[in-house]
């Protein structure tokens, strides 16, 4: 049974904490080059091209089914690429060099590339069989080879930052949705990714828990230099954290620009329709 925690989430985390635990430097850019993704006969992305600069924060918006999640899932290697190239920094995600030729990536290449990328899911997806601490140390110990003590120290720093230091021994089922999502953000950051993917991370939350998670992400955006790709329908939040907004429809970019312009004076009818629909809901 999920706990019915209706008390407001903890206040915005300490900024010093964020500055102390967030790594800096080396955030890669991202480039989609004629990317094709199909599900059966449904062509979701048709030769999609776009790029994200190192350290840039980009928000993807667009109607349901326009391919936003698919783009993030391709980057997290949760979906296979059908055609085209995805660059993360100077390397292709789904391909590697072999004898001067570009061949499909093997598991090892994917493993190396994934080290640069972290993702936070709509449904949190914490490991329910592990307590909060173990959720945060599992990856650093098993993947990055940190000692247990180092991993615990890193976990403590991150839990401090997300304002949940007192929940270190709790199990996910004992936490509210907002708390679970903050732990999930800490878990992703514990791997020290240089790219952070956020897929509607507050849309499964009760309304009163949304603010706590958004404040945390604002702080992370401010205090880190991560490259961030964010899917959200929360326009105020998107304005705060993003440098640029991409409006998608049917796997194509309809319009792009700084958040103030896209939300304030969109030039495309489809964008206007979409924003109106979001406001109405």
């Amino acid at each position, binding site marked *: *049974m999920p706990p019915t925690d209706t008390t407001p989430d903890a206040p915005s985390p300490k900024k010093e904490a964020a500055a102390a635990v967030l790594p800096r430097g080396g955030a890669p850019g991202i480039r989609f080059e004629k990317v094709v993704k199909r599900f059966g006969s449904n062509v979701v992305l048709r030769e999609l091209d776009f790029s994200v600069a190192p350290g840039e924060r980009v928000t993807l918006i667009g109607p349901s089914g326009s391919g936003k999640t698919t783009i993030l899932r391709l980057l*997290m*290697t*949760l979906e296979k690429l059908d055609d085209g190239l995805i660059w993360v920094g100077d390397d292709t995600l789904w391909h590697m060099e072999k004898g001067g030729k570009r061949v499909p990536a093997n598991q090892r290449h994917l*493993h190396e590339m*994934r*080290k640069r*990328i*972290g*993702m936070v*899911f709509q*449904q949190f*997806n*914490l*490991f*329910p*069989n*592990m307590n909060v601490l173990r959720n945060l140390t*599992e*990856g650093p110990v*098993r*993947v990055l080879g940190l000692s247990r003590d180092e991993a615990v120290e890193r976990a403590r720093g991150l839990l401090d930052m997300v304002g949940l230091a007192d929940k270190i021994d709790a*199990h*996910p*089922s004992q936490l509210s949705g907002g708390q679970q999502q903050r732990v999930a953000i800490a*878990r*992703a950051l514990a*791997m020290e990714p240089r790219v952070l993917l956020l897929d509607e991370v507050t849309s499964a939350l009760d309304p009163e828990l949304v603010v706590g998670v958004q404040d945390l992400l604002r702080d992370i955006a401010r205090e880190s230099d991560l490259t961030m790709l964010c899917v959200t329908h929360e326009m105020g939040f998107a304005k705060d954290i993003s440098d640029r907004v991409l409006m998608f429809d049917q796997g194509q970019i309809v319009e792009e620009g700084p958040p103030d312009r896209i939300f304030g004076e969109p030039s495309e009818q489809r964008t206007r329709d979409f924003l109106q629909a979001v406001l109405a809901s």
Partner: protein
Amino acid sequence: MTVDWDWSYTGDILPDLLKGLRYTIIATLAGYAIAIVLGMVWTLLRRTPFAAVNQAVRWITEFIRSTPLLVQLFFLYNVLPSWGLSLSSLTTGIIGLGLHYSTYTAEVYRAGIADVPRGQWEAATALNLPRSRVWLDVILPQAVRRVIPTLGNYLIAMFKDSPLLLAINVAELLHEAFEVGSKSLMFLEPITLVGLLFVAVSVPSSILVRRLERRYATY
């Protein structure tokens, strides 16, 4: 018709029957240990990327599951020695029970694994965990927890199947009851006692399993 129950005879045969019950329980527990380990082995082998292994395991387990335990016990008891493998009847019985039930526990594990939400696999990939860790730390602990009650029910079912070992001369409970009965030609008391002893073990076990079920319903 009246039935005469001989209490002093009952008292005389009880120690022999309890000795039989001991073998019944030994065979059940040892067989169960094999079933829960081997079942997991079948399940994992069915998920290897090698199609040949996959298919072989699929047909072997299908075959074992769809033939009667009694036939399998006779087979093991009579055929293994001719292959130069002489085992005691108890050991043969334990292997038979374990092998037969492993094909059921394999199905149980398979269902438990399928029940783990896709998001768990995806989170594990996003964290870049190696395959072995995904299984050992994330998927199996959740899958096994989900199926503990079902596994408990199979333990009870197996206990109730254990009298079949009579057929290969294991000195289990029913075997002992026939033994004492045929000496005195009085079967009512020993066979009734067999029933009562089975109930005496099964009912508390079922209650225990139901407790487990509640205990493991949440983390």
